[in-house]
């Protein structure tokens, strides 16, 4: 499948085969390696041509001034794309920018290849494995996946099979690695890859079509994790004057920071800082209204080393500076202390 690539540089990109293409039709073209270089440093494609599909492993090694890279071709695009390393940002025609991160995949269709890959940030290394299928081949599996056929039949505009990319399962990851590391050549390679790609397609379709819709932002929490989170909250509320850092807290209860942050929000509905701040502010208010301690003392009691920081935070939380807050309360109660 011929693919033209362009980049923002005036020179454009040229792909040149590293290996001479095998001549004649009898020899099965093993792997065609294409290499290209431009403002994005270098690109390496490995091609495996099979009758029903073409497998392409792309390695993008990007330089400092990498921006975007456009692929285009007159052929119809039906590609199952797996991101193997780092994140890939891409645009299909004029649609909004999408992202697939490491370990995710989706099925992409377009009337012609006109896909723009973006590289964020520069100096990254993105690997993808693409399997381009022929429409005829997809028809074979169509009886069992009517959604697929309906989707393939929509030819006008580029789209993805599933609105959000799915994640590879362990069995799929093993298959991807086996395909990439395939040591065979010739007919053996073709037969092997054909079998692998076919199974991978079935597994991928199952994930993309049949998987239950599930919010990706929630993380699974076990009973043990919940106990830890309650313990974290307890600890936090008892140590307002000497607040632990997130790292210390995570260490203290024995849970990693990511899980602590996410889990905390999921369980208690607020962030750790939000919770902590609320307690500090309530406490500061009690001191303000119940005692005649100075603002500087109260800020220390509320865990702030620096009174201006405390005043700013207080104002942010209650909408009034501490001294105004106190004054207003006292006037409202008709109890003016000198």
């Amino acid at each position, binding site marked *: 499948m011929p693919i033209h690539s362009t980049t923002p540089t005036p020179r454009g990109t040229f792909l040149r085969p590293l290996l001479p293409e095998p001549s004649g039709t009898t020899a099965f073209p093993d792997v065609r390696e294409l290499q290209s270089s431009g403002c994005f440093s270098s690109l390496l494609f490995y091609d495996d041509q099979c009758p029903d599909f073409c497998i392409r492993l792309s390695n993008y090694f990007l330089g400092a001034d990498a921006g975007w890279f456009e692929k285009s071709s007159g052929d119809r695009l039906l590609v199952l794309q797996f991101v193997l390393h780092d994140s890939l940002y891409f645009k299909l025609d004029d649609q909004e920018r999408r992202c697939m991160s490491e370990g995710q995949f989706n099925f992409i269709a377009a009337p012609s290849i006109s896909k723009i890959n973006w590289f964020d940030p520069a100096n990254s290394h993105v690997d993808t494995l693409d399997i381009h299928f022929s429409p005829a081949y997809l028809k074979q599996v169509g009886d*069992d996946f009517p959604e697929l056929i309906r989707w393939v039949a929509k030819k006008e505009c580029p789209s993805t099979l599933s609105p959000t990319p799915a*994640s590879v399962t*362990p069995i799929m990851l*093993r298959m991807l690695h086996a395909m990439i590391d395939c040591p065979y*050549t010739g007919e053996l*390679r073709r037969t092997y890859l054909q*079998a692998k790609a076919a199974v991978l397609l079935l597994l991928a379709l199952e994930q993309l079509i049949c998987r239950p819709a*599930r919010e990706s932002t929630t993380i699974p929490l*076990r009973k043990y994790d919940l106990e830890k989170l309650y313990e974290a909250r307890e600890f936090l509320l008892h140590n307002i004057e000497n607040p632990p850092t997130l790292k210390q807290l995570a260490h203290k209860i024995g849970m990693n920071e990511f899980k602590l942050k996410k889990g905390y929000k999921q369980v208690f509905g607020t962030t750790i800082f939000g919770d902590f701040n609320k307690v500090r502010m309530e406490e500061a208010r009690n001191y303000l209204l119940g005692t005649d301690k100075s603002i500087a003392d109260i800020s220390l009691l509320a865990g702030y080393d620096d009174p201006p920081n405390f005043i700013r935070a207080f104002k942010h939380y209650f909408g009034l500076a501490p001294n105004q807050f106190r004054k207003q309360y006292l006037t409202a109660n008709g109890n003016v202390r000198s």
Partner: protein
Amino acid sequence: MNIRIEAAQAGEIELSPVLPSSLQPLQIPDSIGYGAAGPFGHVLVQQMEGEGITAIFHSLHFVQGDQITYRSEEPALRLQIILRNSYHYDSMHLGRGALHERGISFNYVPFINSSLKLRPGETYSHLSVYYQKQHLLSLQSSIPTLTPFLAKVSIDQPAIFGGSYTIADAAILSVVDNILGCTYSGHVRELYIYHLCIELLVLSLIRLSHDMPAAGAISEEDAYHIYRAKELLLQDMGHHLSLSSLAEETALSIYKLNHGFKAIYGIGAAEFLHEARMKKAHQALSETDMTISVIGKSCGYSHPHAFALAFKKYFGYTPAFVQRACLKNGF
């Protein structure tokens, strides 16, 4: 596939398409099962179709032990993988021989007539995959030794590809697991089975055509001691069963134990145990909601970090990845 099984003592075994209730739990979903159960033990034959390829899973259990004879009029171009116990066969075409657990053999017979010696109370199982000649034709260019084999097939002569059998590696065993554990139905199932069987064929032919160390000779008695040792190892996976205590329990010397494992599985006892632990851990991660450290402990790792490292080295991904993927899929 029309197979008849006759036992020397129990007589002709009537395989019924309606499985006796005792065998139903063993049934592979969506497969065509034929079975017989009785005081003699049980025979269960389960057939899976995949677009011209037939995979048949056999399971045999004779309480008193017996000598059984398999017969079929149809020619068989088949890959045989022994999954449990040693098969001591006497085939009309291929002669006498023994295939041990994990042994694979690719052969052709114009019709099936072979007898098996079964020990009392033992369970035997194997997978036979029946291919068509057309599946092999295109592979000749890559595997030259296939040509003389196919020449024999076309004049209807019995033949064993590669001359003998070899031992299945982890890749082959994982394909077998996928075939037996296929959860699809209908046409997708056929496609899935077909492609997995083709992959199995490629992997097996390569393994058989290379000069892999042929399965070492091991006596029937020694093989059974090794199977006992294996059972002990698998039961006790969480503990650190030493080779010497294992040798003591099975009445084998450490030398014999290690060489026995090598002869049957192609790997030493320690490596065998490691493989089993990793597989067990993988299964526990995807099917239960135990934590990683508990699973690590049950597989003999006292520290979750060491477990995660070993796991990643073996599978190429971390235990957490398996857990996440399975939670996402709604387990």
